């Protein structure tokens, strides 16, 4: 079957959403994964955006932003950021969500803020030096990371993005592992999986270190280990993740009308 790695990642992410869940989608890939799930197997998924756009589906192509007219043409309610990100997300009410990352580490911490030259990271030098490359900051991902009951990280699997420790924690995962997240009063439970272009990693229930639990028909354990910047552990019951079914691909492509995931 002909599909791209991006499409596999979006479908694997979509499979994690269950019917009836309250979910928040970010812009871009995560929105496609969410609306794919709604169309494919979870028609009762209740989705909204962080600006408080409720009950809508994209019209005319992938929305340019979470507030774009393409996601505002058939909404049933428009509210605001305090309502969506505060009352529904930071409060601990949302069941599931997706966030993207420029860099992740083995405890699921996310960096979307900047790229630092080696050995100039703030935590390493004890001061907040300027990043070599400024990225976009946390956006609403921090509310998801601290408030959602669980959430998924959707990341392109490249060695430079998968590091032992992120340069900057924009959105906290399990911090230093174990129970270190529990020091903070976060209502949310933390990341439940990293869905990547090569496979799926899930946290060990005790150490909270992310380990490989699944790979795709086109990837391998070796390829994934080579593209991970920490010594990746492999679950004893690691599995091959089923490739997309025809129905899944059809539903994904009906959502991804502009073919943004089909570019190889």
């Amino acid at each position: 079957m002909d599909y791209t790695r991006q499409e596999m990642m979006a479908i694997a992410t979509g499979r994690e959403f269950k019917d009836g869940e309250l979910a928040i989608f970010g812009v871009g890939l995560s929105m496609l994964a969410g609306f794919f799930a709604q169309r494919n197997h979870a028609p009762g998924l209740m989705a909204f955006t962080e600006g408080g756009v409720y009950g809508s589906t994209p019209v005319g192509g992938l929305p340019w932003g979470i507030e774009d007219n393409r996601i505002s043409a058939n909404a049933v309610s428009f509210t605001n950021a305090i309502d969506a990100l505060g009352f529904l997300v930071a409060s601990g009410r949302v069941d599931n969500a997706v966030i993207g990352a420029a860099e992740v580490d083995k405890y699921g911490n996310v960096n979307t803020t900047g790229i630092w030259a080696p050995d100039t990271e703030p935590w390493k030098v004890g001061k907040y030096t300027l990043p070599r490359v400024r990225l976009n900051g946390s956006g609403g991902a921090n509310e998801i990371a601290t408030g959602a009951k669980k959430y998924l990280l959707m990341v392109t699997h490249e060695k430079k993005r998968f590091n032992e420790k992120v340069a900057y924690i924009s959105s906290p995962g399990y911090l230093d592992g174990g129970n270190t997240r529990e020091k903070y009063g976060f209502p949310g439970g933390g990341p439940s999986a990293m869905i990547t272009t090569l496979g799926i990693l899930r946290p060990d229930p005790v150490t909270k270190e992310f380990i490989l639990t699944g790979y795709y028909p086109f990837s391998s354990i070796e390829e994934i280990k080579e593209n991970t910047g920490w010594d990746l552990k492999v679950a004893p019951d690691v599995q091959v993740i089923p490739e997309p079914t025809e129905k899944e691909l059809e539903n994904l492509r009906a959502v991804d009308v502009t073919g943004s995931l089909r570019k190889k």
Partner: protein
Amino acid sequence: MNKSKLITMKEAVEQYTYDGMYFGHGGALPVGSDCISFFREMVKVGRKDIDIASNCNSQGTNLLAAVGGLKRMEVGFSGLEVYGFANGLKRAVETGQTVLEDYSNGAIPIRMMAGALNWPFIPMFMNTGCDQQWASADDPENYPNTKKIPEITDPFTGRICGAFTPIKPDVAAIHVTMADIYGNAIMLGTEWNRYELSRCSKKVILCADKIVDTGVMRQYPNLVRIPYIVVDAVVYAPFGVWPQCSTGLYDSDEEHMYYMNKMLKTEEGTNEYLQAFGQYDDVFDYVNLVGQERIDKITKTDTAFLMDPYRQWIKTDAEIKELLERR
């Protein structure tokens, strides 16, 4: 409510903004609502050393940063969503020209709410246990920082949370879909931070895509989330969000979003952009600059039906000119 607050864009920027001010803008959305033409006017008159409380970057802050007018910014998101990184702001941050203090998209409007309530601080869990708390661009030598978001203990449960300062800008410019001349406003699409911003700022200027008769406010008072009491000035700003989108009126201009952001990448490009899109007399002339071809394209929006209930109250350009002359 019997006094008209309608003034021109030029007057609004001259009378209400100044170098070094603490400025708020809304909706502060990277693709949607924001007062972009207000930023263009500030750039035109050379406002500088601006300190901004921003929910998200938009093409407005991107432009102000690109010309070197942005001294400091508190922000939740500094990009342009699917349109990519904001090149003008990115350049200003990487060269150290703009001090960028990071928060998140939920923390900024809640800090504005604290400002509106005149609270001394507000406790939150978000932005704690991460580098939004530990790294401070205002106080870079101290890491992990303990002053930006000090850790406090909930006196009732003993849980750890962060104490956040309220936001109270000197001046705010807020985009609204429609406003009457007294300062009553209706917004279509997400409000984002505009409700809180209109209450936490010392001075509030509305930038309205449409000027409407007060009759619409009396018909739909529940929709008037910004009433005249909190507003100081009303500016007619047609296509004031372009090249971003204004729900109900026009879509984002894909071509210009990319073009503008590409030009802001360098100082030379920024100058070239301002030569082409920074020279105009007033908002009527500005609409000519946007051009009929672009207007025809972006106004074919799937959200246009949202304006149907309001059309009978919209003032024409001729009526608005007369209202401005009659003052």
